[in-house]
């Protein structure tokens, strides 16, 4: 793996490997006074965020710092982007300034992929070099590390993902979380059901590895987990549903629906939650809800991804910097 741009690119082995490593990090850091590992000492990780974010940026920053990487945060509002610099020039500048990894959030789908292409270089030995690019959310496309932390949370709560039924509810059309989860959970052997009003389903959803339904109440009794999505008002540029109240009544996870899911069901939400809209006030704090576990797992998953991209290399795509003799 050189980049993490989409969960559709992840093999089952890679995905399970990342989840296992994330568990390994959780375990390695458990009960320690000093939560610092020397693994990425001397490596420079830059987060480049063109959209606001609390948990994703902080999570990557903590992950990098716990592994001793030098973490530099670049936000669009406080950088040359505000002066009109193009994404391409910003990315190449950060590469030239020494970034080993670029963690990119951008409102345009495909931005992370573009940055990976713009910053890739071939060295004298013909090896592809350049920073590892991690997609931390690109438009309505993908958010792979969110899907990985969701999968880790599901695995911890349910024991295994294979054969489980996960219902993803809400604003599918604007949700990169839904897209990443649909691919990843399907790769890991889960059955994924999307529940949304027809107006909030993307064109081409029939090509996704999922089934689609519109009645949430009918899906909950047979579900092992339900993933609520935030209604993304900032991306709503048309009348996707008549009113927030109607949406909440039909698709909100309230106490009655939580009972349909059962005590063993798992409730996920990528955050930020709109309490009273897609998720009820008390549901968000119910024992079935895993929102804070998801955040904790997020740090460990991102440590695992950084480990895989920055220190492990594939034989055909080595970064040509170190030829350390195998000392085993």
């Amino acid at each position, binding site marked *: 793996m050189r980049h993490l741009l989409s969960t559709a690119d992840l093999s089952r082995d890679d995905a399970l*490997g990342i989840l296992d*490593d994330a568990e*390994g*990090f959780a375990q390695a850091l458990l009960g320690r006074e000093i939560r610092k*590992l*020397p693994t990425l000492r001397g490596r420079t990780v830059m987060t480049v965020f063109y959209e606001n974010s609390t948990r994703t940026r902080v999570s990557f920053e903590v992950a990098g710092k716990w*592994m001793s990487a030098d973490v530099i945060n670049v936000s669009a509002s406080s950088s040359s982007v505000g002066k009109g610099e193009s994404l391409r020039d910003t990315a190449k500048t950060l590469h030239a300034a020494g970034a080993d990894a670029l963690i990119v959030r951008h409102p345009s789908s495909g931005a992370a992929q573009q940055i990976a292409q713009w910053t890739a270089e071939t060295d004298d030995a013909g090896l592809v070099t350049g920073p590892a690019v991690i997609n931390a959310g690109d438009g309505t496309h993908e958010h792979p590390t969110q899907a990985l932390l969701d999968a880790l949370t599901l695995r911890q709560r349910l024991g295994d993902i294979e054969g489980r039924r996960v219902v993803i509810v809400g604003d599918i059309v604007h949700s990169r979380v839904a897209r990443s989860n649909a691919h990843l959970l399907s790769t890991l052997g889960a059955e994924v059901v999307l529940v949304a009003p027809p107006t909030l389903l993307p064109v081409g959803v029939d090509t996704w590895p999922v089934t689609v339904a519109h009645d949430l109440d009918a899906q909950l009794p047979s579900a092992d987990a339900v993933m609520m999505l935030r209604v993304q008002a900032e991306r709503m540029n048309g009348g996707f549903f008549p009113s927030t109240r109607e949406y909440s009544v039909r698709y909100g996870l309230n106490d009655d629906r939580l009972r349909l899911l059962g005590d063993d069901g798992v409730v996920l939400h990528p955050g930020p939650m709109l309490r009273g809209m897609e998720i009820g006030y008390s549901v968000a704090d119910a024992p079935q809800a895993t929102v804070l576990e998801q955040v904790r797992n997020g740090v460990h998953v991102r440590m695992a991804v950084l480990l895989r991209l920055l*220190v*492990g290399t594939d034989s055909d795509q080595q970064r040509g910097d170190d030829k350390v003799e195998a*000392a085993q």
Partner: protein
Amino acid sequence: MTSAARRVLLDSADVNRTIARIAHQIIEKTALDDDGDKHVVLLGIPTRGPVLASRFAAKVAEFSGIEIPTGFLDTTLYRDDLRGQPHRPLERTTVPAGGIDNAHVILVDDVLYSGRTVRAALDALRDLGRPATVQLAVLVDRGHRELPIRADYVGKNLPTARDEDVAVHFTETDGVDEVVLGPRDTTAGGSA
């Protein structure tokens, strides 16, 4: 290839005799059976170290009646050769209840080779606590040290060539107790 053939250097009886001998040495060197409250901890380094550590603990208990706690110490995240190497899956690290502060920690590994694993283990230990002393027990010392590190307990000193591989097998993990010298084989238990 200096040695194309696979040679069994220690068979099951040899391995067990060696483990028993080192267990006696551990008791003697740490004065375990003397009066006093000795806090000795065995930390096995994956992949074969933890098995070896529990074997030592069992023998120590058999000979002295004293139970010494064992744990796992994964050194992967502390290695200095991670860059440019294939991805290594993480193993677990478990420190026995009571921690390692002021303990006499004995690191346990199957093969001592370059010494880099032991250096990584010493770094990892520093993040876990402050032991009173740290010792090293290995089943095989195959030479070729790249760092000034030596073992306190050695089962067998084994002169080897760099293109040879020393594989340690245990019943618990491989179905048989033996130490095998053969051409380099990356699938077998480590040459550390």
